[in-house]
Every structure is written in C-alpha cells, then in structure tokens.
C-alpha cells in the first residue's frame, strides 16, 4: 500500500506554503516529515488526510487517484497535535467511534465492536482506562487513546501531527518506542510530522526534510548525515549524526 504525492502546491491567499511537493512512500514504511516550524508540514499532512485541498498536484494511493476523495472515505488514521479526543465520550467510546460510523452493511455488530475495542485497548496497554473520560487522563494516556482510535478503523495509512510535542521528555521516549512497535505490529505505513530531529532519526525509515514549503531532501537517516544535499540540510541536522552514531536508534 503506497502513497504517491505529486507536485502538490497549496496557497494561503497569495502565500505559497507547499511548492510542488512530491514524495513516494512505500508500503509499510515509516516516514518523518522533518522541518522547522512554519515549513508546511501540517499543511501537507492535512492535505494527505483530505481535510484541505491543494490548488495543484495529485495524490494517489495504490494506484487509485484520491486527490478529490473526501477525508471520510480515505481511511487514513490521523493523530492530531492535541489529540482531538471526544471529551464527552469515554475512552472505549472514542475507540469504537470509527467502527460505529460505518455504513450498516459494513458495520460490525455491537458485540463485535466492543470485543474489538477491548483488543485494541489491550494491545495499546490501556485496557484499564476503558471507562475513563479524556479529561481524567494524563498526556501520555491521551496520546495512546488517540493512536488506538486511529488504528481502530484499520487505516490504510497512519498520519501523526507532532504527537509528542505536548508531552514532557520523560514520557516521550517510552511512547516513541510503543508507537513504533504498534505500527510494526499492525503493519501500516505512517507519516510522522515533527520538528524534532532526534524523534525523526529514532523512528523513521526515511526522512523528508522540509523548508519553506519544499522538500529539501528525502532519504534514509544514514544517507542524510552522509550526504546532505544542501547547506540547509547539513545545518539543520547538525548534531543529529552524533546521536545516530551512538547507536541509540532503532
């Protein structure tokens, strides 16, 4: 299951915030969109999700043109920066939401839905939180719920917008590891938006470095360090190499 992004251009008024962005993502791959704040990462992710539409370019998934497909029909699981949990629903209801919204013909029975929710919550190690409400959760727990909710729809692709930025450093490392292992267990491709190179280097198979609405370079972490394609990339990644060589990566 692969995603092709071709020449996506997006304007806000007269500002060009995505400048003919192209990316090819392989099935099951974990990609990081890495770049300074304001470089257009969120905009690109939301365009992939179908929450907004670009003025130019196309998106296709597994050969199917999805440029004009509504967000609800893309089946891309998204984790929002502040998680966007449904505050008036319990954790279990949050996770069940996507299944309950399916057309009657495709909707599992109520019993199957709750069984599925229990499985998912256990897999994410938050089974004990099922009856809690979002406001009763810690930041890390909220993130796990958001991720589980996105996985519940059996997504074709996982989209994550700075999912660690609201957490303190102590929980971050833990959650990074469990995110990566969940993603591999499910076998779904993922695109992670981040401005934190350490995060990108630890998690991603390949990293797209963005600046000013353009992809500066798209390569594996090792190659980015070895052969930065521009002074910007070299400067932006300064220090990341040392981290990589220390062997703390995945």
């Amino acid at each position, binding site marked *: 299951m692969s995603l092709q992004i071709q020449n996506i251009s997006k304007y806000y008024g007269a500002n060009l915030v995505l400048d003919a962005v192209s990316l090819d993502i392989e099935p099951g791959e974990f990609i990081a969109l890495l770049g300074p704040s304001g470089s257009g990462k969120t905009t690109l992710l939301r365009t992939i999700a*179908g929450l907004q539409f670009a003025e130019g370019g196309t998106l296709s998934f597994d050969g199917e043109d999805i440029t004009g497909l509504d967000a*609800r029909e893309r089946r891309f699981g998204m984790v929002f920066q502040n998680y966007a949990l449904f505050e008036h629903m319990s954790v279990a209801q949050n996770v069940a939401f*996507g299944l309950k919204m399916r057309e009657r013909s495709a909707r599992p029975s109520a019993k199957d839905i709750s069984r599925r929710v229990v499985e998912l919550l256990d897999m994410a190690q938050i089974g004990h939180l099922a009856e809690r409400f979002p406001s009763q959760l810690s930041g890390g727990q909220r993130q796990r719920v958001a991720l589980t909710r996105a996985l519940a*729809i059996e997504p074709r692709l996982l989209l994550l917008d700075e999912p660690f930025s609201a957490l303190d450093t102590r929980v971050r490392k833990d959650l990074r590891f469990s995110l990566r292992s969940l993603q591999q267990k499910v076998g779904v491709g993922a695109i992670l938006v981040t401005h934190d190179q350490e995060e990108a280097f630890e998690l991603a198979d390949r990293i797209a470095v963005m600046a000013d609405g353009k992809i500066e370079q798209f390569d594996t972490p090792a190659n980015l360090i070895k052969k930065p394609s521009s002074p910007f990339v070299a400067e932006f990644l300064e220090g990341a190499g040392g981290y990589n060589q220390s062997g703390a990566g995945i």
Partner: protein
Amino acid sequence: MTHLDAAPPRTFLSPFRLKRHVMPGFSLTLGTSLLFVCLIILLPLSGLFWQMSQLGLADYWRIISSERTLASFRVTISAAAFATLFNAVFGLLLAYVLVRYKFPGKRLLDALVDLPFALPTAVAGIALVALYDKNGWMGTLLSAVGLKVAYTWWGIVLAMMFTSVPFGVRTVQPVLESLKPDAEEAARTLGARDWQVFRHIVFPQVWPSFITGASLAFARSLGEFGAVIFIAGNMPFKTEIASLLIMIRLEEYDYPAASAIAGTILLIALFVLVAANIAQSRATRHLHKGSS
C-alpha cells in the same frame, strides 16, 4: 451549624464595615436598590401570593379544574410545546448557519434574529393576522392547499414561535462559536458523514445550552399575550389561551379566579425554568466529566 463557635471572629464583625472604607456609596446604592426592588418587584409579587393564599384549596381547585380553565391550559401548553420544538430545531439551524458559513445577507439575518425582541408584540400580532388570514399573502397560499392558520390553534403556535425565536438562537450561538474544529475533523477522518459529525460531536456539546434555550422559549410562550390574541380566534375551549382567560376574569373583577390561573401559569413556568437549569448543569457536568 455546630461549628459556629469555631468560626473565625471576623464573621462577627458587620460584613458591611469591611468594604465600606474601600468603595464609597454602600448605603446610597444598596438603599436605592432595596427600595426599588421592594416597591417594584417584591411587593406586587407578594400580592399574587397573598391573593392565592386567601383562596381556599377547594376554591382554588374549583377554578383550576373548571372545563374552560383546563381547556385554556391545554391549548396554551400544547401550543407552547409545539412552538418550542419548532424553534429549538430552527434556532439551532440558524445559529449553525450564522456561526459556520459566510454568505450574502448574513449580517441582516443576524440582526433579524433579534427582531422579535425589539418588535412590540401587538404589532407582531396584527402583522401575523394580516399575513395569514384568508386574504393575506400566506393565507391565500395556504387556503389553496386547504390549510387554515389564522384563528386556529396553529395561529397560536405561529405567534409563539415568532416571539421566542431569539432564545433558541442566542443561547446556542456562543457555544457553537467556542467549539474547536479538531474534534469534528477527527470524526471525519474516522469515517463520519456530515450529519454523523453533527449528531455525535457537535450536538452533544451544544446540548446543555440547547436545553436552556428551549426552556426559556417555552416559558416565554406560556405567558405570551400580545402576539397571540390577534391571531388566536379566542374561542373558549378551542383557541383561548390562559393569559386571555386571566384578562377576561380581571374584566369581570373576579380577582381570585384571575390569580389562581396566573399563579398556576407562573408556577409552571418557574418549574420548567428550574428543572431545565438542573438538567442543564447535569448535562454540562456530564460533558466535562471528571474535569473538575
């Protein structure tokens, strides 16, 4: 109460003293306020309860349970309920459209929502008759399809609807404005259709304010007089509202009967408002479960 003697000595000082030194005008402003509140609000209200208490329970019951009074209650309450239902739905729609969309005429629509509060009820009343009686613009249209609004129960509903539109819109509007879009976007990525997003994400969040708006509209409709009497037809047992019956009893100098009916209507309205207030705070608590 048992801890009274353990209370800090401060409470035994006159609470008036504490602030008097800070902001001047305490006795002037509170004195003025109390004089006004007593003469204009409390004294007249006590008149109603005094009159009602003069009435024995048996007399009260005889007045209230008379065919005509009961019929007027039935007419008033059913029309008010129907108008409220209608306004709750359309009020929500108007609020939603005003908050979410840009379109030509939006400012005019926004101003128009307040019209029923600004327009005198008697004016609204004759305007509705002019429109809906058999020679009116709407009346001719409706009679062509065999519908009659003026001088029927539907006329009462229409007048009550007109006067209570703003409640439904203005209570829900600020809540809709404060909703963050991300929960709705999350629902869409999870596969929800537009109406499912509304039904499961938006509506639960506006529900407390929705209850408040509906109860205010209902209370207002129960007591509406000016807008209704012109279009109601005012046939005893059929299209006679409670407020009109109070007026009729007054003109007969039957103050006890007028008071019994008025007191009952007042109590129903207060009961609805208090019940809605409780329901609303419960719903709010449920909405923010555990966040306290």
